[in-house]
């Protein structure tokens, strides 16, 4: 006889008992202790069939394979670049993965990326904490010129993107800015009009601030429309 002690979207704290009995299976954010499943971190309960998950709500970015992140080139070696991706250790971008062109060994690597360049890259491989490999081969992966980078709590990234990208599309459309949201919580924003860029920044911060309140999409929509409207009057 198994007993589920929580509901979908309950906020749970580490150590909280989520279910008793062997019918449920602990997934990410949970662990089994004898016949109990307990939360192993603060988060939101997500139930799917027999699977219980706790989705992280706070904390630093933790790299995952497949994540698209925004990073800064901080070092150049013989065979590639070191990239700060807002994790404890720098990630590695090799010559092979840096461009769809063939890069000859004799090439001056700074022609491609130099110190301080901002890039959107994807994580292809992780081993332990210290080995993280990036690639620039893929749609949307490129050097990001100009614009502005803001940083938000990584766990709020899904809210900024929205369901099937609905939220970010709306911001792009209403502000005319180009925006890339990295899973590591860094967001790159570029636009021609400084007012519009500020609006995009404010909107993203507002989502971060109010991510947990209900009716977020509607509120963001009217926020964008109000601000757009008031700037037209001026």
């Amino acid at each position: 006889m198994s007993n589920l002690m929580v509901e979908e979207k309950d906020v749970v704290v580490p150590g909280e008992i989520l279910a008793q009995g062997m019918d449920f299976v602990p997934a990410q954010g949970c662990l089994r202790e004898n016949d109990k499943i307990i939360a192993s971190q603060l988060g939101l309960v997500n139930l799917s069939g027999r699977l219980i998950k706790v989705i992280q709500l706070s904390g630093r970015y933790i790299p995952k394979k497949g994540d698209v992140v925004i990073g800064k080139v901080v070092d150049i070696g013989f065979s590639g670049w070191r990239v700060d991706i807002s994790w404890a250790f720098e990630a590695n971008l090799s010559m092979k993965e840096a461009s769809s062109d063939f890069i000859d060994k004799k090439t001056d690597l700074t022609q491609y990326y130099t110190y301080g360049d901002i890039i959107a890259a994807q994580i292809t491989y992780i081993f332990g904490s210290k080995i993280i490999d990036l690639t620039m081969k893929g749609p949307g992966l490129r050097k990001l010129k100009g614009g502005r980078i803001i940083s938000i709590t990584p766990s709020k990234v899904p809210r900024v993107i929205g369901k099937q990208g609905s939220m970010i599309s709306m911001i792009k459309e209403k502000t005319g800015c180009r925006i890339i949201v990295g899973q590591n919580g860094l967001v790159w924003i570029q636009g021609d009009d400084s007012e519009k860029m500020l609006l995009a920044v404010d909107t993203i911060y507002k989502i971060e601030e109010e991510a947990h309140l209900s009716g977020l999409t509607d509120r963001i929509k009217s926020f964008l429309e109000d601000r757009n409207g008031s700037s037209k009057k001026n």
Partner: protein
Amino acid sequence: MAQAKKTERPDGRKLNETREMEAKVGIIKRADGSAMFRMGKTIAYAAVYGPRELFPGFMQNPEKGILRCNYDMMSFSVTERKRPGPSRRGVEISLVTKNALGPAVNLDQFANTVVDIFIIITQADAGTRCAGITAASMALADAGIPMKDLVSAVSVGKVNGRIALDLVKEEEDLDGTTDIPCAIMSRNNEITLLQLDGDISEAELIEAVELAKEGCHKIYEIQKEALKEKYKEIKNE
């Protein structure tokens, strides 16, 4: 019970009663996780930073992350000014705090990194290390650090020959008082901090630790509530 009613504790509490408590999570924006815990007039702030790169590199552990802890008091938190900066007392409390929280924390997936805990006491009326541990445990959870349970801490002791929960300074300073700071993970009642200074029998010690357990369960409820308070609106989505 009859005895509990007759108690003459300085603030009129029963022997098995904690002081009034208050907890708040997310008070320091720059930190990855933070919390405040107030136990009567004792107030502790805690902040967590990490996992981040550990310097110097030779201290890194390639198998798991390292927990570090720094406990300190504001100079004016006590009646006689405490000189700012490290003290022997602070170093020891930092260590026992780390050991009290360590068993709850799982840093296996953060090899080579460090998770730093900083605790500062802004106002002291005994039980500062316990308040610090209680606050730090909430800050760790707020920072998204994997943990098997929250850690709650309270001091118990023997005052005027009777076992009492959550001593205040006035009780701690009495001649013959025994002070026993305890930290407990509530789900399995695992004790992670146990110190004692004074003079007490074995039977009294067991009675005291049982009382600490009850106290910690109450503190746990406050911690849980404060953590949920920060994120409570999510459920309404």
